[in-house]
């Protein structure tokens, strides 16, 4: 079974069959089909949250751009809930539950990794959006009793992140750097 949701201009498209699923800014997706890949490109201050469900082997990913949906005046939290930390993580978990990841959300069944949250070279607090995204994500996860078991966050680098369903390690790449695993 494979399902990924990509929202484009207020439409939700369900795509199946493509083994590599691209998660754009504010998108989310999940799969339990071994060999499928979830991939998101060029995380700057954005953060990829990757959630694994142990007993079903389902893995989900959401590409969070901003910490808090309350700033949106256009209903973005409804049309693209993955865009914000406070709506993206609950939406991904709900989606994974609809795919059979049942039972209480707990560390014994769900594990989380995060990557991204880079910063620009600056002293300006308001531009530290990467750090604030990470902080908001950890708070939301904590409200579910979860915390990241691995994190590759911060610094001044743009990260592309992918995971193959069935594997445990996340691949992280960045221009002019060797690939590393998380």
């Amino acid at each position, binding site marked *: 079974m494979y399902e990924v949701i990509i929202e484009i201009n207020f439409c939700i498209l369900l795509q199946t069959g493509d083994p590599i699923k691209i998660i754009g800014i504010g998108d989310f997706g999940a799969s339990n089909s071994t060999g499928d890949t979830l991939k998101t490109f060029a995380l700057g201050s954005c953060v990829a949250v990757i959630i694994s469900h142990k007993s079903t082997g389902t893995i989900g990913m959401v590409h969070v751009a901003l910490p808090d949906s309350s700033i*949106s005046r256009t209903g973005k939290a409804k049309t693209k809930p993955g865009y914000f930390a406070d709506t993206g993580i609950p939406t991904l978990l709900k989606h994974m539950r609809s795919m059979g990841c049942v039972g209480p959300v707990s560390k014994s069944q769900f594990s989380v990794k995060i990557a991204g949250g880079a910063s620009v070279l600056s002293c300006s607090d308001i531009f530290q959006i990467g750090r604030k995204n990470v902080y908001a994500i950890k708070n939301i996860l904590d409200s579910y009793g979860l915390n990241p078991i691995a994190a590759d966050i911060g610094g001044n680098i743009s990260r592309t992140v992918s995971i193959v369903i069935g594997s445990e390690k996340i691949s992280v790449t960045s221009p002019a750097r060797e690939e590393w695993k998380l």
Partner: protein
Amino acid sequence: MEVMKNPKETARKILNAVKTVPVLSSSAGRILQIIDSSNPSIAALVNIIRNDSPLTANILKAANSAFYGLRSEVSSIDQAVPLIGIDEVVRIALRSGVSDVFEKELTGYKGVAGEFWKHDLRAAIASHKIASYGRIYISPEIAFTGGLLHDIGKAIVSSYLGDVSKKIVEAIDRGVVKDFHEAEKRLLGVDHAMVGFEVARHWNLPEILQNIIRYHHTPSEAPEMFKPIVYCVHLGDILAMMAGYGTGSDTLYYPLDDRYSDFIDLSEDELHLLILEIDEKFEQVNY
């Protein structure tokens, strides 16, 4: 960090290469001159466009795209230009007028095809929106145009970086050099902002655009009269990179000059809203 054997000689070669950059199309050049006027006129733009058949065709194509959702076909340039607006005219004129430059794969920066244009477009949209937060008036159309052109020097510098991107990144990580801008100067004797400035002069661009390009990484050094708009595009460039739209290995390796707040009045909530609006606009125009 390994420094090129003779940065002065490299700089001379790079600056000579500026003369080989394809000239800006006559229409694009005249459109940019009009944008620089105090009150850019749609009628003046129409007069230029109607004498350039390929540009007319591209603008009519844009006006009839699904994005505008019109029931009847737009067949006249007089209707099309007010419909799509000045920013869109500039975007189409520059993309079709110097496509060889914008479509270039920035191999020296480890960039991939199409990344350069997307970064510039993202920075242009961001700069246009930031202009409305200026403490004094900043022309959103010039900010947009400056955003599109600010990194034009990379099209030349890329070829001279060769395969040293990885060493630059390592040197910045180790603190040997503070950012990519400084690394270019030390390695090549000249940086992409200065090379872009020379391209802008080669194209005879308005002085304000020349200054945006030259100082987009060092806005505090810009002449006083240009500082507000230079800081505006400086922020637009940074926001594009933060969103993941960079040009390769140098992404996020440039400092944000915090003195922007002398010219741009932006709260944290406004910044977050701005990021959201830039994303929405980019999705609309990136076709």
